[in-house]
């Protein structure tokens, strides 16, 4: 090895060349890894959820209209912190629930409507909350399980059903 170009170079030059290559290639790799880590890290995802009504066949069985969730699909990454602002925008006196299938439960803060203002109640670790006309709720949970999970209104089945899609 001493007879090669590598052997003829002085120690200082070899060390300087090695340091330069190592630091610059390390910076390139670091920036790439940082990019991957940064953009796949769990994040807080905020959604606004409303009730809607199908424009046909109303009212239906027992005078219960065909209501829906808007949006009916919420997609997040596993580990994300999910915040859903759910608003009952009914123009008639009609309640809705936000109910999730297990294993998901959530924390909810229920806010009043025109006649009952401010925080109406806080509900930690529940699977179901009822909103009267004009009320809104902030629902929070962490998407710890990957898969597709149902959220629905217990009063308006089968149409008022949405799906939480957690990408693992």
């Amino acid at each position: 090895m001493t007879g090669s170009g590598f052997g003829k170079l002085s120690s200082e030059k070899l060390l300087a060349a090695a340091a330069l290559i190592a630091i610059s290639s390390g910076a390139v790799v670091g920036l790439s890894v940082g990019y991957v880590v940064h953009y796949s890290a769990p994040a807080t995802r905020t959604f606004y959820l409303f009730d809607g009504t199908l424009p046909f066949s109303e009212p239906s069985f027992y005078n219960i209209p065909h209501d829906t969730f808007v949006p009916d699909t919420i997609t997040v990454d596993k580990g994300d912190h999910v915040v859903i602002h759910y608003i009952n925008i009914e123009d008639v006196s009609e309640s809705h629930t936000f109910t999730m299938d297990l294993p998901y439960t959530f924390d909810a803060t229920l806010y009043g409507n025109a006649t009952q203002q401010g925080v109406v109640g806080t509900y930690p670790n529940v699977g179901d909350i009822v909103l009267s006309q004009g009320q809104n709720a902030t629902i929070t949970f962490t998407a710890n399980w990957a898969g597709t999970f149902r959220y629905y209104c217990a009063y308006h089945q089968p149409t008022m059903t949405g799906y939480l899609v957690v990408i693992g």
Partner: protein
Amino acid sequence: MKFLRWSAVALLLVTGIIDLYYGNSFAGFYENLWYVMGGIYVFAAIVIAANIEPRFSQLTVFAYTLFLWSVWATVALETGIGLDAVAYADKAIEAVLAVNMVLLFRSSRASVAVLAH
């Protein structure tokens, strides 16, 4: 030179064990890279201890140390990850290791030059 070689081996082993601990203690893609880094450090300690191709291996270990320092610094600056007591201790030891490798490499080359004359 013997002292520099064995101090390099000790520093490599300590750094390797810290990296293995770090990789083993946390879950996630980036932390698993630490696990790999630790394994390479332990392997490097064996190579330096056995004095295999010393001028090449010493330079490679020096470059590897600076490479990892550079990776850590850029990832930490970009994401804020890896800024904890374990990582600080690890990187401080790596800095000492880099200096150790410079001194070891220079003394190895000097001793070869003396032998050649």
